């Protein structure tokens, strides 16, 4: 692996780079307005957006991380698959349609549809940018380490390659290019996963029960491999992590943004159905990836390649399908990273350029041309900041930043989304306190957690005893976000009954001028 790339690998990587650049060139001709840039003009169909949601959501953490976690920890690794999938029900039942009916480009647009206030918009933008940066650092550091491992090139070059590609897609092709990169990535990822799963099943004689039976003997954990408890032994910690997974998704800015790329709530709905089927099938297949890696690669070799288990899926591909499948799966992992970081850049740029610059600093008095220029400058800004942070974070253990991003999303964004749509008494003060309480409590609690503090040198960022034993503090911070919004609301006398009736009507009927003007 580290002895340079094979010709096959070079072919697949060049094919992906080439194909995505052609798409970007094609998309750039269709990107002239701010709406084109942020939402692809709202013109995506249900299946397109559904695939793009899947492509946006199935990050390297899902593909490489879960395969590795299942391989090393059996059922405990599969908890992630369950949590990431059930999360779609929260998105579909509570968030998707009202968001589509009320919002324009960003989460802040949706909240300010009710509370037209710079503080509310600013706080929502702050929370979006925080989540985007944390998530992006995790993706870029992971991408750098992975590509370093796969291709044998230096970490900093790998980060710069990924950074350059994501910036190119977003800068020239906006949401149209980003969406199609995500759609292609989703198809490639499903293809790769189905092929590996098929090969794994073939090894087990196409019998699920044989597979489970074999798995009780091939690892050093014996029958315990098939039961929870290999990794997660603290009940509250497990519960807390699962809360973050299921509630965080509905507050992730790059996922929420995808609902503005379709024309109406009905299409938003059908795109979630597509996404849920694709993502669900993928997560079922993570069982085969993980079991296969444990059986045909072996725990020792997986850990030797990467301590976190991230190489499990590529190594399995190599064991069952040789160099061609290995190269293909590595290229798919590369495409996976590109698609996710491009979506992140776009949602960060929308908060920076649309919310903070366009709506707060320029107070909405901004021409179409200026908006597009601002969006491009914002994209470069977000990309450069995250690339610099990722270059500086090479030696840090950043895997927890993904779960931190989920935690902030569930604690800072979800409460304010729910209150805005469903709570009549909610007001401006409550919106600001809900977001700030969720954001600050998630950050502070993680800063005290075992992810940051560990008595053993090198296990976490600082050496020392953690103050709380929850690796993911969603169990505390999500209720705090709701409580913060509740108390903030009651402390202020402000009410907005008329405005709430408007929001309620819009959210539930999707009514707009077009509906009554014919």
């Amino acid at each position, binding site marked *: 692996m580290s002895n340079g790339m094979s010709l096959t690998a070079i072919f697949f990587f060049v094919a992906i780079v080439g194909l995505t650049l052609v798409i970007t060139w094609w998309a750039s001709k269709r990107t002239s307005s701010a709406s084109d840039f942020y939402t692809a003009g709202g013109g995506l169909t249900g299946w397109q957006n559904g695939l793009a949601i899947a492509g946006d959501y199935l990050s390297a953490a899902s593909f490489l991380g879960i395969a590795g976690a299942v391989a090393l920890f059996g059922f405990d690794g599969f908890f992630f698959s369950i949590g990431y999938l059930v999360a779609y029900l929260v998105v579909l*039942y509570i968030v998707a349609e009202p968001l589509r009916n009320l919002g324009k480009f960003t989460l802040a647009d949706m909240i300010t549809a009710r509370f037209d206030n710079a503080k509310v918009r600013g706080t929502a933008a702050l929370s979006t940018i925080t989540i985007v940066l944390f998530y992006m650092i995790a993706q870029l550091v992971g991408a750098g380490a992975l590509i370093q491992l796969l291709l044998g090139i230096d970490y900093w070059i790998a980060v710069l390659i990924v950074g350059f590609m994501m910036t190119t897609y977003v800068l020239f092709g906006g949401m149209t290019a980003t969406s199609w990169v995500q759609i292609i990535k989703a198809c490639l990822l499903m293809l790769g996963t189905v092929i590996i799963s098929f090969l794994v099943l073939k090894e087990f004689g196409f019998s699920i029960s044989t597979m489970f039976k074999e798995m009780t003997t091939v690892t050093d954990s014996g029958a315990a491999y098939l039961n929870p408890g290999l990794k997660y032994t603290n009940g509250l910690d497990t519960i807390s992590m699962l809360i973050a997974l*299921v509630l965080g998704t509905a507050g992730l800015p790059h996922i929420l943004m995808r609902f503005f790329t379709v024309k109406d709530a009905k299409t938003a709905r059908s795109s979630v159905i597509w996404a849920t089927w694709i993502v669900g099938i993928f997560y079922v297949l993570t069982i085969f990836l993980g079991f296969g890696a444990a059986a045909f690669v072996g725990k020792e070799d997986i850990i030797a390649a990467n301590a976190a288990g991230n190489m499990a899926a590529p190594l399995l591909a190599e064991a069952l399908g040789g160099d061609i499948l290995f190269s293909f799966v590595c290229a798919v992992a590369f495409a996976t990273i590109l698609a996710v970081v491009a979506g992140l850049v776009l949602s960060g740029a929308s908060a920076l350029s649309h919310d903070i610059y366009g709506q707060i600093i320029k107070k909405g008095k901004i021409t179409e041309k200026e908006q597009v220029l601002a969006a491009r400058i914002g994209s470069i800004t977000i990309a450069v900041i995250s690339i610099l942070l990722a270059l500086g974070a090479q030696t840090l253990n950043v895997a927890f930043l993904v779960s931190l991003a989920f935690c902030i999303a569930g604690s800072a964004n979800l409460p304010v989304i729910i209150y805005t749509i469903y709570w009549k008494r909610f007001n401006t003060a409550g919106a600001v306190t809900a977001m700030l309480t969720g954001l600050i409590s998630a950050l502070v609690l993680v800063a005290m957690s075992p992810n940051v503090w560990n008595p053993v040198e090198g296990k976490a960022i600082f050496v020392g005893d953690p103050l709380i034993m929850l690796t993911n503090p969603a169990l505390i911070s999500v209720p705090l976000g709701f409580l913060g919004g509740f108390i903030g609301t009651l402390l202020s006398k402000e009410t907005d009954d008329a405005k709430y009736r408007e929001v309620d009507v819009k959210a539930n009927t999707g009514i707009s001028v077009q509906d009554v003007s014919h």
Partner: protein
Amino acid sequence: MANNQAKKGIVIDYDSIANQESFKSLVRRKNSFLWSMTAIFLSAYMLLPILTSYTTILHQKAFGEITWVWIYAAGLFIMTWGLCHLYVAKANSFDREAKAIIAEYENGGGRR
């Protein structure tokens, strides 16, 4: 949107729609459906870590070497797909009601 409204001189009287009995009834039924289903699927989901952390009932074998925890997990997957489609069926019927509500508003002289 605000600009379009001003240009065409059309103002939607949201209060009038919000006060229609049909609208109030739709929102009531819709919210009670959404939130009761949410309570059900979140409970089913959170029960998994509670059962696996504090009991061993899901650790027992169900079929061959497959333990109940996998069956429960499979149940959660099927639940997710099933509830997705239930939602679409429900939402389509809510859509028809919403259309009727807008029509009622237009015919009722809600336009200024």
